[in-house]
């Protein structure tokens, strides 16, 4: 609740226009670093740009969407656990000098055209909807831990338990797959 009050005070100081400009900046950083993830040759740099993308998305969750729980979990799970897994795997496996990592020119251009067509189609579908007014967040405790915990343990109890079984099997499976063959 302290974090919530702090964010609310910060949002009163920062006006709506400032929030808008801050969102433009964060969106620019997110798209730029996502492009760098895809197009950089060195994969250590690629992983570091992916961390930057996750942090900008966390800032959008907390500042624009008032979803503190998702923001914190995003840092803990993505920027913490998943990125550490990626970095450890790359650094232990010594893949520093992989050969050319882009496909041929033909595949590169056809991939760009395909992704561009996908983006144009989705944006054209978006233009039908009328969501251009600034969003007014009325339920300020929607993304807090208290509210989400109530919903999670009341309405989504069974999926939560199934997720724990999934984690156990994933852990056993990862250890089994990555274990060196002794025979």
């Amino acid at each position, binding site marked *: 609740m302290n974090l919530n009050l702090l964010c609310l005070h910060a949002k009163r100081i920062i006006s709506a226009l400032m929030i808008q400009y801050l969102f433009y900046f964060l969106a620019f950083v997110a798209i730029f670093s996502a492009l760098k993830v895809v197009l950089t040759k060195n994969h250590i740099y690629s992983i570091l740009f992916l961390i930057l993308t996750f942090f900008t998305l966390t800032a959008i969750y907390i500042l624009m969407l008032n979803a503190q729980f998702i923001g914190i979990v995003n840092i803990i799970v993505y920027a913490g656990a998943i990125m550490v897994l990626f970095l450890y795997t790359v650094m232990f496996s010594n*893949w520093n000098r992989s050969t050319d990592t882009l496909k041929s020119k033909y595949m590169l251009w056809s991939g760009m055209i395909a992704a561009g067509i996908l983006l144009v189609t989705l944006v054209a579908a978006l233009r039908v909807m009328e969501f251009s007014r600034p969003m007014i967040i009325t339920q300020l405790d929607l993304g807090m831990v208290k509210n989400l915990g109530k919903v999670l343990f009341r309405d989504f109890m069974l999926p939560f338990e199934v997720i724990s079984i999934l984690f156990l099997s994933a852990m056993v499976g990862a250890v089994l797959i990555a274990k060196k063959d002794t025979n």
Partner: protein
Amino acid sequence: MQGDIVQTVQSVPLNQLILLSLCIFAIGVLGVLVRRNAIIVFMSVELMLNAVNLLLTSFSVSFGDSAGQIFVFFIMAVAAAEVAIGLAIIVMIYRNTNSIDIDILNKLKG
């Protein structure tokens, strides 16, 4: 409890948030289609999952339904399990073929 502090917060329009998540999703698709390095293909999948997370959270906040954020929580949990399994598989591919180039994997021989 908050009383007279503030009752509503004005934020950015919803379609700008949707546009941002669409751009990140398209970049992820581009990465899967263009790159040959298995690690980077994997990171592009993570980018697409993050775009979906942003979209679900935006709609959840916009419509005032907290089930969307619970879905985001489940997506994050599944993504963590998927990364663990996928990296183990990539490590095994590297041990067997000395490469993480996915174009080598088109032969399904044992």
